[in-house]
């Protein structure tokens, strides 16, 4: 991020006069230093969901180019904490909402951050796009495949910039694998390993599947606490009696809201694989699961999940406690294997990488993308493709069988029950 560069100033043609009258609060200092950036130069953001992740540094980041002006939460404790954190970090009191639709409609907000449980992501992202906002959305992108399609459509039609909150395809060490993704991409691009490839995502390679995100099947109904608007927390999800384990972090253990460790870590682990294999524009055609029977409400554990692409590439996920024995390759092709720590069976791998063009990774600064109206490196389209890998795994687990998927129609073939999991009913009046 180049903080010294004054950003492109967003103007709208006839609306300029109107825009400057609207109350954008003036702040003397940003981030504790004396660099004064006038409000009209700044972008603004609002965060829906100021819980554990919502209040983390991903959303409460330090960047003077975009000011936090609004927060929203259905839990008044979380909302209070979100307001207080904004005061503490940035020195201003944000606008606070309890109904996310008000935040999305707020003309003061340029970018909407969605840090709610996944069952809300689809509705909120589409609504934000239709309201002319840009979007920063937590993973998994959506809870169902159908919602993902709707978000892609809404973002496209409104030409909004969308950022999915996962980033390993372009930066950071790739978990316990001991390398960044870039050399992996180069190695695959070079063709040295051959084709097709099998990728193994396992604790043996440094990827933990967080099986502690499982649900309980014996939840006793409890009274809803004063601070929580449970009806709004549930939103489109089916109404089930309140129990603390359903909300606030442990919601990850219930199919109604999320998909356990698979959905939690899935996009982080799978999106770079999709990138490495060059499959941002397609989907696996088959998903197989080996797991105990899953409860209809509470997410359980699984032993393995295998995705197969049309060209024979495979992605194998190994559950915690079911990792393959011994040294296991992360990437395996007919001509070579790659292990943790970039250990490769091909002797002259460094030379091969020198001769291979670098992959193009541009637009990794979302604020720049918003200002320049450029698609972020991990936009809604790419995010939809990798979240579909996760979600087809969820469907296969819930049905306990192998599913076949048609990348063209984006539906399951020969399994109507699976297709009924693509678009799931929403409670009450909630709809796209």
């Amino acid at each position: 991020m180049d903080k010294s560069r004054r950003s492109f100033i967003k103007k709208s043609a006839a609306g300029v006069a109107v825009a400057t009258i609207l109350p954008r609060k003036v702040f003397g200092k940003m981030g504790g230093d004396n660099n004064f950036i006038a409000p009209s130069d700044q972008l603004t953001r609002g965060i829906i969901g100021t819980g554990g992740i919502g209040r983390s540094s991903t959303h409460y980041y330090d960047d003077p180019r975009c000011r936090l002006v609004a927060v929203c939460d259905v839990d008044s404790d979380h909302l209070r904490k979100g307001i207080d954190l904004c005061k503490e970090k940035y020195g201003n009191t944000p606008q606070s909402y309890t109904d996310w639709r008000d935040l999305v409609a707020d003309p003061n907000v340029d970018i909407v951050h969605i840090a709610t449980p996944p069952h809300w992501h689809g509705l909120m992202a589409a609504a934000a796009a239709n309201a002319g906002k840009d979007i920063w959305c937590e993973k998994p992108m959506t809870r169902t495949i159908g919602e993902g399609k709707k978000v892609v459509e809404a973002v496209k039609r409104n030409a909004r910039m969308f950022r999915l909150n996962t980033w390993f395809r372009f930066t950071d060490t790739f978990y316990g694998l001991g390398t960044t993704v870039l050399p992996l991409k180069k190695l695959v691009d070079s063709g040295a390993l051959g084709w097709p490839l099998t990728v193994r995502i396992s604790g043996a390679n440094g990827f933990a599947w967080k099986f502690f995100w499982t649900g309980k099947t014996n939840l006793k109904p409890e009274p809803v606490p004063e601070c929580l608007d449970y009806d709004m927390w549930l939103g489109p999800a089916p109404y089930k009696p309140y129990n603390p384990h359903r909300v606030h972090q442990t919601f990850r253990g219930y199919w109604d809201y999320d998909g356990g460790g698979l959905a939690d870590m899935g996009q982080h682990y799978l999106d770079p694989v999709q990138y490495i294999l060059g499959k941002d524009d397609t989907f696996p055609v088959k998903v197989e699961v080996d797991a105990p029977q899953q409860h209809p409400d509470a997410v359980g554990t699984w032993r393995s999940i295998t995705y197969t692409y049309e060209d024979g590439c495979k992605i194998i996920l190994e559950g915690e406690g079911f990792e393959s024995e011994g040294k296991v390759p992360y990437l395996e092709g007919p001509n070579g294997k790659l292990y943790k720590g970039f250990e490769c069976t091909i002797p002259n791998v460094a030379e091969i990488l020198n001769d291979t063009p670098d992959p193009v990774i541009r637009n990794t600064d979302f604020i720049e993308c918003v200002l320049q109206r450029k698609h972020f490196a991990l936009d809604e389209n790419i995010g939809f493709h990798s979240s579909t890998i996760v979600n087809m795994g969820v469907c296969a687990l819930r049905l306990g069988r192998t599913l076949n998927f048609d990348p063209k129609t984006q539906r399951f073939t020969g399994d109507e029950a699976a297709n009924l999991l693509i678009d799931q009913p929403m409670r009450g009046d909630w709809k796209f």
Partner: protein
Amino acid sequence: MKKHYIYIVLAVLCLAAGISNAQDARHRTVTTIVADALAQMPVQNEADFTAEFKDLADSAPESVAILTGMLRPAKDTCNALMEYAIAGLVRYATRPENAKCLSAVKEGFVKAITNANDIYNLQFLTSQYRLLCPENSPAVSEKAVNVQENLTKYAQLIKSPKDNERCQALWLLAEAEGAKCEPELLKALSDPSGACRANALIIASQYIGESFAAKAATKFNKLTNDAKADVLNYIGENGIASQQGLVLKNLKAKGKLGATAIEAASKLATPSCATALASLLKNKDLKDKALEALACFHGTIPESIASVVKGRRAESFKLPEGDNEEKEYDKIYAKAAEAAKKEVKTEVNALTDEEKEQGFELLFDGTSMDKWTGNLIGYTPVDGTIYVSAKYGNESNLYTKKEYRDFIFRFEFCFMKEGVNNGVGVRTPMGVDAAYDGMCEVQILDHDAPIYKDLREYQVHGSVYGVIPAKRIVHKPLGQWECEEIRVQGDHITVTVNGEVIVDGNIREACQGHNVAPDGSDENPYTVDHRNHPGMFNERGHIGFLGHGEGVKFKNIRVLDLEKK
């Protein structure tokens, strides 16, 4: 743990009443099929799944009626076992190869939904039923485009001050007119909003193709610099080599225009682009960007600069040093993992001082199974307990390595879910059904579970199965430990649970000395279950745990060998 009880009872009833009940190959009624299946929930693998649910599906709609009838209001109790079974039945029935059972299962659901009286259970049944009905699923149809409606909306939205609405307008127009909207798209290139320009170009690439670039090139000079950059980007992204001239002309332009041109040249990857980029390496302002562009260049690079480019590529292959700093997410997860771990504690297995004096032997110390043999896969040490995941069957039992004659056997057990079914085999050989071929089986059963509401008196927890009924106790709530003692001396057997004596009898007297039918038949009038118990007077044998499904764990297992006194 017995599956045959209903067989005997009902077979007798049937003979008496002259009616025949629906029974499967093992002569089980639907009630028993359901009860047996529930004791196996959740099923652990594919093979077991098919076996368990085939029986349930084949006995639909009655099985559905029984299962759904067992659902209690959410506030009263836990419906987990039934929920597993109902959802599993839906999974089974919706497999294409099981289409035959689908209509019977659906019939069961329709009745259940009609009769449901608890709103949450109704919601659960409805959501499961939905998966059974493909003919009711919404058709996947392409929304027909209403051309006039689109054009009206376009005319209205294209004038909007909001750029996202002007973008929507372009899409509506494109859907209505297809490639005919080209003039409007060209006009949109002059839109002040980058979003609209970008959208116009996306629509052009979808509906029109390469020729649009040529048209855009003719009005290139009338565009703003930002719009020019968008057009060059479009040319690069879509590989429109015919317009490379436009790209190369702008390589040295200032600001965003020049930067975009350099990127576009890299994407086009033609020989002219390679040469042009190479020449920029001498330009002090642009050499960095040019080098980056060449590093990504998917085409042949002039020999003269190939080594420079390779050097740059080597930089990008840098393995990280040391560990990543712990991310925010990881801290949150670590807290959750800690909280999850705290819920599990390791149990203590120890003799009391009195037991030590008396000469009791601890059979399980919390970690080692070395005093046991048999099914060491279905019975495993977990957190200081022996955790049971064994299925029904004579090969699935756990036995003491040693054999005993007279003894005091003490242990603690904990039911973790409803309907648990296990048993203690006494003076039994290995690999046989201890209830008949051992001296006896002392029943371990969660008899309070609703699925056992029709239990016979000699099947309750603690009974000497089929021979001496136990006094029926009330079990502690699920998840709590209970203690039991089984004392066997000669023919005398005493069972004590949580301090209360529930069996105190003489097994020989209970059947008047006839452990098998005097006439050599299969029906023994002297035993309560009317079966033969050939092993009843065994001199000695192993002590065993006779498993049937997950949900129970044991600890503090100790024995006093009375023979050694």
